[in-house]
């Protein structure tokens, strides 16, 4: 037992404490999971639970639009489809949460296929415009079948996510952490590599033998799945699925959070939500100029940190080893993996790439193979 604990501590020190970024992320998660036990204020819990739900939503947008480059301006469709599906199943058929949220997520996957298949042939702005249309179409349907969807008022009176606020918070937090880890793992896998390649150059990916249509559809479905989980949680947390979940604002919020936090990183999207969503509440101290301040902060941050908040911070706290590309804490003098000195003035131009393997220098490796 003691040896196991010692092993865990070593792993923890070696994997998490070595990098400031990971340390911050780990401690923030730990605080978010422990704090509510010490200070279970219902308002705080409500805001934090919603933050976790929206973090899944923003991360799912980042998966599709940041990683695969399929700029989706109508991401709310996945959120809304799942919210309505969960709500209708729960209210009309009386199914419990454990069924309605997964079924809602599956409905969002189907929505991913419905959006994804026509979008396979589109690129760039055309794709974005097409995705923008889908939530609008669905919104039209919602207002057409009012006896089923409740029209303007939505479907309300759903079962609560859990009997108490604290339970609700922990359900959102655990589902949130697990979903975000899953998305992160996906982007770090072979699938993630292919998705990166499709964003960088789709024609070259095809010429490498990658069925890009298939992978783009997979990305649409995965993104839909996680956005759907968020939508189902949201519906049950707010106990209502209304047309505002399909609104353009919902789609654009995900985009604002992700770009603010750092696009194509996943952790950036999560950081963006955790900074911006509670900030909107904090800014209630100045109710008249609340949104103005909010917008000003976003503009200023993006002016001075064009890559987004999280990558900017990581850039300051960590340094990439020029040789093995491992990240190191900014305090270290040499790389923790290969021992290369890190304090050498960084060259702005990629000189190493130009000269290291001009022509003659390569002959050895050429003959060798």
């Amino acid at each position, binding site marked *: 037992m003691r040896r196991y604990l010692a092993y865990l501590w070593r792993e923890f020190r070696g994997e998490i404490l070595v990098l400031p970024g990971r340390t911050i992320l780990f401690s923030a998660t730990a605080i978010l999971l422990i704090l509510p036990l010490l200070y279970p204020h219902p308002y705080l819990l409500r805001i934090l639970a919603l933050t976790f739900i929206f973090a899944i939503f923003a991360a799912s947008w980042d998966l599709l639009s940041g990683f695969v480059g399929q700029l989706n301006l109508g991401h709310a469709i996945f959120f809304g489809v799942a919210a309505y599906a969960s709500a209708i199943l729960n209210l009309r058929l009386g199914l419990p949460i454990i069924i309605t949220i997964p079924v809602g997520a599956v409905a969002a996957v189907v929505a991913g296929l419905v959006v994804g298949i026509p979008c396979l042939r589109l690129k760039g702005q055309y794709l974005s415009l097409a995705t923008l249309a889908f939530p609008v179409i669905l919104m039209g349907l919602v207002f057409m079948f009012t006896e089923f969807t409740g029209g303007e008022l939505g479907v309300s009176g759903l079962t609560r996510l859990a009997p108490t606020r604290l339970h609700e918070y922990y359900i959102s937090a655990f589902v949130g952490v697990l979903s975000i880890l899953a998305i992160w793992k996906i982007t770090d896998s072979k699938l993630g590599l292919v998705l990166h390649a499709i964003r960088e150059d789709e024609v070259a990916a095809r010429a*490498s033998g990658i069925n890009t249509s298939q992978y783009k559809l997979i990305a649409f479905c995965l993104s839909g799945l996680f956005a759907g989980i968020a939508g189902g949680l949201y519906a049950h947390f707010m106990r209502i699925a209304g047309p505002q979940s399909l609104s353009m604002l919902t789609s654009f919020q995900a985009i604002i959070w992700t770009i603010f936090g750092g696009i194509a990183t996943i952790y950036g999207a999560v950081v963006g939500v955790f900074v911006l969503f509670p900030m909107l509440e904090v800014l209630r101290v100045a109710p008249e100029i609340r949104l103005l301040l909010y917008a000003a902060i976003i503009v200023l941050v993006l002016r001075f940190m064009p890559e987004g908040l999280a990558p900017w911070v990581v850039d300051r706290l960590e340094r990439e080893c020029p040789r093995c590309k491992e990240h190191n804490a900014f305090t270290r003098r040499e790389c923790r993996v290969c021992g290369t000195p890190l304090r050498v003035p960084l060259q702005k131009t990629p000189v190493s*790439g130009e000269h290291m393997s*001009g022509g003659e220098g390569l002959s050895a490796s050429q003959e060798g193979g």
Partner: protein
Amino acid sequence: MTVPRQQQAGAGAETGSPLLEVTGLTKRFGGLVAVNSVSFSVGRSEVVGLIGPNGAGKSTIVKLIMGILRPDKGSIRFRGRELRGMAPWNIVNLGVAGTFQNTRPFRRLPIIANVMVPCLAPRARRRGEWVKRIEVKARDALEFAGISDLALEPAYQLSHGELKRLEIARAVATEPQLLILDEPFGGLNPSESDLLAKSIRRLHRGGRFGRLHSEGMAMIIIDHKLSYLLRIVDRVLVMNFGQIIASGTPDEVVLDSDVIEAYLGKEEMA
């Protein structure tokens, strides 16, 4: 999509049929006929050079074979199978790989990841291979192309010559039977060109390079650097205005009067 090895060996036995057979291939861009009813064939492990003045339609032919452009007329048969209308990735997975004249790396990915992408294609992927093994294979492809010491650099840091090598590493990683190189020597200095010519001959001979192996690839090579090209090819096709105007061994073609007039006469001998 993976083609079993036995089947490849079996197809090799019927020596009569060529590996690639192009008949009556036509492609129009608006009023311009870029490729005008071109027919040629490439035999097993034959190296064919495709030359011609700028705008003759060489690169268009490559893009038609690779499935990036769709032909208006004609057929492209690879080992007896019609490639026309097939998706580009299916063509690659049948065993035709090509490089782009203008290199198209995945710019923000490290070099090794650039080569791991084709290693993830169904053709290159053996059952149950995980990331580590694919990385080893990608490293072999880099080793072959001679850029393994740059494996971790992002692709946007590479020089032009290195990008050309990266293109070749990426094409070789799928272990093709037919390799199409579009201006591989373009923009390379003499020593780089010598190395590349050596690599091409080695690919043609076949054999094992770490985890990669080839049974002697057939190749179509397009280039303007005739001094290099004519030394490595078995046969040359000369194109002008979308048509093949001459075909033969390098020695024959250089002496052909049509060729001298259409191509060498204007560009090389002036």
